[in-house]
């Protein structure tokens, strides 16, 4: 309305009122959410709930990357799609759902898989990246581009009745800086043998297991943004945050464990001072992620 002099629109006070009144959010946190751009890579079992709660919370821009199409076998866990949207691009289906929940957000869809060639262009405009993909090749690529572009990375995975989550490259200091948090390669310098890698299609997955991990990714992302990420933050910690790996096991009597992880690896291929990884090198295709992670054979066990 005319003469409205508050930092948020009237509609936004109504929509976000329940989170605005939290001392840890407040008007300042809501404005940070509104000015933040978040990229969700993967519109599947992790990406659906993660995008839902990020849209609900009112991030300014929500980007979604996925080259796949909705299938009926997705629907037991990919709760933003629907039976009527089987056959539709996952990116379009997820954005249609999110827009229904919160039309105030700006949505950007990338109907393609992330590649060394498009990664810089896709990721550059965002403040935080969520790895909601399902293969080591994409996990190493996403980590590398987040290191190169200085983006914190909220990474999760799930299989059968287990899940894992870790916040990487936080804070996202430049390569070689000891002030940055570790990247995916610091924690997992070598990929597992290709025949030990199991997808959810092969190994199976319980819907709420991957759902919990996706919701927790949204939560970590909101916490990062509300606290002020990267340069925006006044109180940059003097020592880098060493991340905690959250383990979830649905069948255990203590289903969650928080594990203290290492800081940056001094000889990390991606984030060390000695790293030869550059945007140009990446884009030129000098890194073959598929070869690095090994040839995928259909028979496997773990």
């Amino acid at each position, binding site marked *: 309305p005319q003469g409205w002099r508050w930092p948020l629109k009237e509609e936004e006070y109504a929509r976000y009122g329940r989170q605005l009144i939290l001392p840890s959010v407040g008007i300042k946190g809501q404005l940070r959410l509104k000015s933040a751009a978040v990229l969700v890579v*993967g519109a*599947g*079992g*992790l*990406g659906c709930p993660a995008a839902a709660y990020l849209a609900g919370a009112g991030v300014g821009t929500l980007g979604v990357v996925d080259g796949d199409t909705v299938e009926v076998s997705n629907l037991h866990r990919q709760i933003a799609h629907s039976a009527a949207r089987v056959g539709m691009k996952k990116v379009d289906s997820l954005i249609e759902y999110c827009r229904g929940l919160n039309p105030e957000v700006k949505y950007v869809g990338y109907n393609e898989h992330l590649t060394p060639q498009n990664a810089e262009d896709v990721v550059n405009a965002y403040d935080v990246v969520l*790895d*909601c*993909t*399902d*293969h*080591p090749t994409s*996990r190493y690529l996403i980590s590398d581009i987040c290191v190169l572009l200085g983006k914190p990375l909220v990474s*999760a*995975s*799930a*299989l*059968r009745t*287990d*899940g*894992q989550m870790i916040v990487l490259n936080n804070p996202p200091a430049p390569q070689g800086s000891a002030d940055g948090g570790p990247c995916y390669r610091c*924690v*997992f*310098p*070598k*990929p*597992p*043998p290709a025949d*030990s*890698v*199991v*997808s*959810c299609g092969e*190994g199976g*997955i319980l819907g709420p297991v*991957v759902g919990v991990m996706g919701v927790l990714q949204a939560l970590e992302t909101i916490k990062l943004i509300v606290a002020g990420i990267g340069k925006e933050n006044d109180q940059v910690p003097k020592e880098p945050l060493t991340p905690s*790996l959250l*383990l979830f*096991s649905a*069948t*255990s009597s203590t289903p969650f*464990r*928080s*594990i*203290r*992880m*290492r800081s940056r690896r001094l000889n990390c291929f991606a984030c060390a001072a000695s790293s030869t990884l550059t945007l140009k090198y990446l884009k030129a295709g000098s890194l073959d992620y598929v070869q690095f992670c090994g040839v995928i054979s259909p028979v496997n*066990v*773990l």
Partner: protein
Amino acid sequence: LVCLALSSLIKCAHASSGGLEMLFSDQRRHVLSVPALDKNNKPVAVAYLIEYLCENTMKDTRKELFVLDDHLRPGILVLINDADWELEGEEAYEIQDGDNILFVSTLHGG
């Protein structure tokens, strides 16, 4: 899930997660008795535990899914008292009274 060093034995219950339990007769937890000192009369290190698990506990014949080139294969995390073993000395870490050792396979699904 707890390792107790006794006079001559380490009674050790370790846990596997993330699919690794399939290599160990589908059990998530194992209670083991491991000598507290190795052949050279030194306190037992995690490297010895891995070897021991491979030889005595693993029922699966595909040892290469647990050990590659005499080291734990990439993609398996070892967690000692809720910390990455890289913070604790990795294979050389000497198992202590009350230690809590967990083997976890990294997951990639989504």
